[in-house]
């Protein structure tokens, strides 16, 4: 198939970017979306032009590196599918495809479609862990956890931190990402000791990074490639209000 691509090109964080149009032909429907971009990049390099930069690594939908806003949707038109799992059979000959980077002030563009998602790391550093050192922990079976709770915790823990929730949200809010981690640890007995401080700190860091607030539109959850539920946000809110009302933290 033959396609027209409208791709955001930006040399670096400090320069202004713009869309550039590329025509590409002989695309097989068996190609993944990223392989289609590989083909484009090979052609660009052969012409001596700088290829389109984009983040990608595992190409099986689990590392969370890929982050393309394709035709107005985070990760493209298919639900529960990361951009790397999207295949060209989801498009038709002659299609015009617009590819943009995630747009959020907390995710500054580094180059072309590559953005800096360090904010997510800093949010986890603010409290997204159980403070146990290596060694000296109890036997794994000394902490029984109901299957239902373990499964719920897993559903939250499955987040790949790609940032599609932020990209899809009209407010560029990171609530789904933050709430997934807060939920995982709030659901498990291991997370109880630091339950209140965790949510307080992570939310404070989230705010400091400049993400927007939540309007409960639900776009985040629908665009999430692993289907993290909005229930997590409700749980985080509950955790936060309860922590604010009851924690020992006077700050």
């Amino acid at each position: 198939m033959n396609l027209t691509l409208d791709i955001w090109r930006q040399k670096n964080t400090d320069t202004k970017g713009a869309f550039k149009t590329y025509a590409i032909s002989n695309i097989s429907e068996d190609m993944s979306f990223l392989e289609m971009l590989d083909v484009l990049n090979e052609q660009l390099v052969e012409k001596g032009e700088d290829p389109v930069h984009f983040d990608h690594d595992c190409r099986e939908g689990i590392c969370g590196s890929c982050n393309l806003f394709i035709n107005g949707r985070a990760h493209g038109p298919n639900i529960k599918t990361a951009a790397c799992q999207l295949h060209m059979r989801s498009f038709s000959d002659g299609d015009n495809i617009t590819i943009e980077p995630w747009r959020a002030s907390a995710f500054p563009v580094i180059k072309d479609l590559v953005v800096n998602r360090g904010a997510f790391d800093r949010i986890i550093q603010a409290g997204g862990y159980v403070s146990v050192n290596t060694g000296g922990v109890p036997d794994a079976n000394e902490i029984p956890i109901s299957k239902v709770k373990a499964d719920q915790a897993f559903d939250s823990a499955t987040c790949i931190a790609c940032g599609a929730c932020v990209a899809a949200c009209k407010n560029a809010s990171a609530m789904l990402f933050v709430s997934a981690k807060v939920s995982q640890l709030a659901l498990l007995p291991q997370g109880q000791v630091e339950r209140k401080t965790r949510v307080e700190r992570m939310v404070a860091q989230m705010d400091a990074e400049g993400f927007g607030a939540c309007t409960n539109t639900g776009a985040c959850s629908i665009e999430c490639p692993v289907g993290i539920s909005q229930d997590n946000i409700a749980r985080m809110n509950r955790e936060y209000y309860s922590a604010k009302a009851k924690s020992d933290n006077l700050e």
Partner: protein
Amino acid sequence: MLLNSKIPEGPLTDKWTKHKFNIKLVNPANKRKYDIIVVGTGLAGASASASLAELGYNVKAFCFHDSPRRAHSIAAQGGINAAKNYQNDGDSVFRLFYDTIKGGDYRSREANVYRLAQVSVNIIDQCVAQGVPFAREYGGLLANRSFGGAQVSRTFYARGQTGQQLLLGAYSALSRQVANGKVQIFPRTEMLDLVKIDGKARGIVTRNLITGKIESHSAHAVILATGGYGNVFFLSTNAMGSNTTAAWRAHKRGALFANPCFTQIHPTCIPVSGDHQSKLTLMSESLRNDGRVWVPKAKGDKRKAKDIPDNERDYFLERKYPSFGNLVPRDVASRNAKEACDEGRGVGPTGLAVYLDFRDAIQRDGKNTIEAKYGNLFEMYEKITGQNPYEMPMMIYPAIHYTMGGLWVDYNLMTNIPGLYATGECNFSDHGANRLGASALMQGLADGYFVISYTIGDYLASIPIERINNDHPAFKEAEANVAGIITKLLIIKGTRTVDSFHKELGKVMWDYCGMARNAKGLKFAKEKIREIRAEFWNNVNVVGENEELNQTLEKALRVSDFLELGELMIDDALNREESCGGHFREEYQTEEGEAKRDDENFSYVAAWEYTGDNQPEALHKEALEFENVKLTQRSYK
């Protein structure tokens, strides 16, 4: 060079305990005066960084990804082994040890593997304490499943995303230490050289992938946890960025590379669909429990699968291995699929695939039963291929999955360069010539959480506490070396893309050093790789400049190292005149066409020493001694 594996004296079961007592310790007040560099933030790197920082060392952790959490450990699906014997089915540390040694076709060190089995139980405790949501039974206790190469259920898992959950556990421990100020993370930073001073590893030179800045980092010790080199084949189940550069540059600075030809090929991957293919996706090997593998009997039969009657199908695994059938081990299944395709009986548009057919299973058990067992895998298959495996058979083909070879390390996980350690897939130590399923995660975390944190102290306590400044001439020399390579690449401005070289290399490696190898092919491949390498340095086109995010340059640097490693793999495969595990030399097979080991002449670790550009590498042998297991030949007929 004398290879001292430093395996402690005494009975197998006491070695690690005694060793922990005998090695030197660093006093808690002094730990904060030592700096440790950890390259890589996958399971092995993140767990090491976190554990060492908890002890009080200052850690600098490096990764080329935008976040430590993206390391390729995240993609591991199946599970992690541990000798917990929670299922009361007769598992024990010794049994896990024995299965791993046997699975590795008797090409790994007894002492290392035994220690791995011992600490495996601690890993599960540690991960659960961190909040890793392992699968559980209704009673609230941990669930297990069985995996290839073992007769007990010892595999802990978190759905099909065990690697992700374990990595996020290690990443959370790492993040906590970043918050504590004990770990400094350098994302989007790639190690490009190792710095040695007075023979000891004292730091690394890196490139900031965003600004292109070449920087020096000094430390008292350097740990490489940089994963495997499967991407030398271009197509593999590895992530696009997985590379050998850090390990290879350390090799060029003197670290020995052990058993480079030991690579694992996984039989059930989604086949290549065309020249555009960038990577391969694994399908769980559990599918072979119900799927039947076949190809048409006639060459070039282009009919649709359902139009080929049963008497014109060749269920070749069932035919050749009546007792194991479709459940033969990974290497056997892979080789037979390749053979069928080489005969021209492969299916699909490229002819490089065999059918994995669920028709009979669906007729026997009903669609619902099959859906309950494999629904998510069928869905994934359909997402990638656009075909419905309930209606037409899946097509599969083997693909490179894991590399057992790696930097040579002693019992302390230290390479032959004092102060340079290698952990996880990056080293060669625990899997011999073949790795069992669910053992990679176990080894990465064992090394990082429970081995390196002890053994590194022994070394640090023996060296002066003074820091070495990173303006030492050795750093300047290494920086100049790195800058030189980059400049050299950037000024070629030839006519071919980096990927075209990488693909060409990968094809040679796959054709001649893949599932089956022979001396003639290997010799041809060696010449071919030299030609590709020569052309690469004359004709590659690396666009852009150094002082920016330049993914072409990143790739070029990695491919330049693969082009050298590839040749060493060929040398190693040529040298090893036997068949064992993932290494199958066609000249050395039993009458039934199975792998034939030569324990008399090849029961050793082949450790290769770099001797200079385009010079043959020097081989050093570390003899493998087996005191606790009896060596036997495998048979699956």
